[in-house]
């Protein structure tokens, strides 16, 4: 039963290895990529069901007892994140079948994507801070190569910023891990949660918390540290952009949520207030950046930053309702943001550009595409009854209950600006008559199916998340309880050693 915990790492690894062995057979690699991502989704769903029924699962690799060995843990939060990883992997894999060019496919696109999925799953499941560093490096190396695969000038220029800033973040993370080890003598998350309060040095722990905040903050693209993101995310082919937008920054947010609920809760008045301030600044700068853009992918990239602010807001409020809202918001934003990116890819396939000035007339010529864009766009802005409404509603309610009126007002104001920038894409790309006289391409048969199926799936899910808000919030509240009161987590990992 507990061996389910290894499978989300093993399945993509085996598929990636097999795909590397089939280096010269492009068809074979495609099938292996699909099989790996579908397998990951399947085992992730099994894991989620198991965690929902049996509570938190932990596995000590090689039967070494807890603080000494390698630990894998899945609570509800981790299990949900792994499931979303599997879903996004499968969706992007299908989309890649038509939209990825043969040259990139021949140079290891599928094995790299699988290794990226493995790294992300590993980061969500590990119960040890140093292993978290290792998984971060695994997914970073895969993402570096995916980002530059193809070697176009824009890709290289974007990659250099992404690469340098992420490496600095890794060096800071490693330093913080080293200092934390010297203070606490352990790196196992559950053991740390027990040891840190016993040290009686909240000041020192808060300094360490700030080091981790900077390291994870660069990876999660929060306010003063996000500049690498909008400069690099629009350069690679669209499936790569989509999987980056869906998962990479969210791993940073996951690490922040994990460490700031489990470890750094000694001086909440300082650390979590700082998180709230950063959340507000991240939301505002992200959305203001988005409003100014004329390139679709760049505009959407700035929105990623703005949405990270909402996730931080939930963490900073640090109440059960706020954390539940963060979890729902995380799933919602991964799905809707990816749907928007996939639709922008369809738009590019139809009219050959991402630039809003040159696009136009899509509402008239392709009503289906227009609807596929409109639903996730409204969901992102937070209109009922779509998923974004419930997530934002819960966040706002948590903010008001906690008495944080200013930050709640900022969150609501940013929603309006989000709606405004979505309207901008809508009027420019869909409503405005087309000025460029070029024939619009037509998608047919298999190509049409493979382009629309992933986007349709995600748009369907964002509607479904809105309709099924009640059971989803029940699950999220249970997950938030596990985060707020980590005794079950600690008990499961350390066993009777407490």
């Amino acid at each position, binding site marked *: 039963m507990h061996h389910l915990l290894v499978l989300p790492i093993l399945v993509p690894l085996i598929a990636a290895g097999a795909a590397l062995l089939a280096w010269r057979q492009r068809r074979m690699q495609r099938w292996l990529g699909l099989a790996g991502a579908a397998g990951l989704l399947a085992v992730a769903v099994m894991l989620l069901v198991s965690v929902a029924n049996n509570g938190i699962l932990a596995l000590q690799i090689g039967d070494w007892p807890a603080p000494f060995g390698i630990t894998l843990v899945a609570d509800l939060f981790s299990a949900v994140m792994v499931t979303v990883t599997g879903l996004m992997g499968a969706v992007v894999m299908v989309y890649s079948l038509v939209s990825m060019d043969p040259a990139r496919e021949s140079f290891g696109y599928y094995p790299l994507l699988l290794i990226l999925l493995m790294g992300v799953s590993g980061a969500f499941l590990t119960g040890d801070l140093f292993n978290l560093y290792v998984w971060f490096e695994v997914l970073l190396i895969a993402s570096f*190569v995916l980002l530059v695969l193809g070697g176009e000038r824009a890709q*290289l220029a974007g990659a250099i910023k992404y690469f*340098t800033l992420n490496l600095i973040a890794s*060096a800071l993370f490693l330093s913080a891990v080293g200092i934390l080890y010297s203070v606490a003598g352990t790196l196992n998350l559950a053991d740390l949660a027990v040891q840190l309060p016993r040290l009686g040095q909240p000041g020192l722990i808060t300094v360490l918390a700030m080091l981790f905040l900077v390291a994870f903050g660069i990876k999660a693209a929060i306010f003063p540290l996000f500049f690498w993101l909008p400069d690099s995310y629009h350069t690679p082919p669209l499936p790569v952009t989509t999987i980056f937008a869906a998962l990479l920054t969210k791993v940073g947010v996951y690490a922040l949520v994990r460490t700031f609920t489990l470890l750094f809760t000694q001086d909440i008045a300082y650390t979590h207030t700082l998180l709230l301030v950063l959340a507000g600044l991240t939301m505002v700068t992200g959305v203001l950046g988005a409003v100014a853009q004329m*390139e679709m992918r760049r505009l959407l990239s700035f929105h990623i930053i703005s949405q990270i602010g909402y996730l931080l807001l939930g963490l900073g409020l640090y109440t059960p309702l706020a954390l539940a809202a963060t979890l729902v918001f995380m799933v919602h934003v991964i799905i809707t943001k990816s749907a928007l990116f996939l639709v922008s890819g369809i738009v590019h396939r139809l009219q050959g550009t991402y630039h809003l000035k040159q696009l136009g007339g899509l509402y008239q010529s392709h009503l289906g595409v227009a609807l596929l864009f409109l639903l996730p766009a409204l969901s992102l802005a937070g209109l009922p009854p779509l998923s974004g409404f419930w997530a934002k509603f819960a966040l706002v309610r948590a903010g008001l209950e906690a008495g944080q009126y200013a930050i709640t007002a900022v969150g609501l104001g940013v929603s309006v600006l989000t709606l405004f920038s979505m309207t901008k894409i809508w009027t420019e790309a869909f409503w405005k008559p087309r000025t460029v006289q070029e024939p619009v391409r037509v998608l047919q048969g298999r190509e049409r199916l493979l382009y629309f199926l992933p986007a349709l799936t995600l748009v369907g899910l964002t509607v479904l998340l809105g309709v099924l808000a009640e059971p989803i919030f029940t699950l999220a509240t249970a997950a938030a309880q596990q985060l707020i009161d980590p005794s079950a987590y600690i008990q499961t990992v350390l066993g009777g050693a407490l």
Partner: protein
Amino acid sequence: MEILLAVVIGGLYAAGFYMVMRRSMVKVIIGLVLLGHAANLLIFTVGGLNRGAPALVPVEGAAPAATDPVPQALILTAIVIGFGIQAFALVLFKRVYQAVGSVDLDKIRTPDT
């Protein structure tokens, strides 16, 4: 010994951050390498520096002043990862130089593709 290493590590961090903020790509790589070394040495030092003590301690009785082996295992992992990443960095920066024709980071603008 710890004091000396602390000064060295501080110097490495300072030099690393200074180099990373330069405009030349070559200096940025050197900066990244220095930062990696600083982090590794930091972990090495926090493990405690004891010379001449046995690496194996008896199961029972008081443990002699042995050096904690865990940080050294951590560094070993970190060095291997750092080596791979630095190799990738060199290739990436060389390709950027070929594509852009300059080592000046300010000349690299990401266009709206």
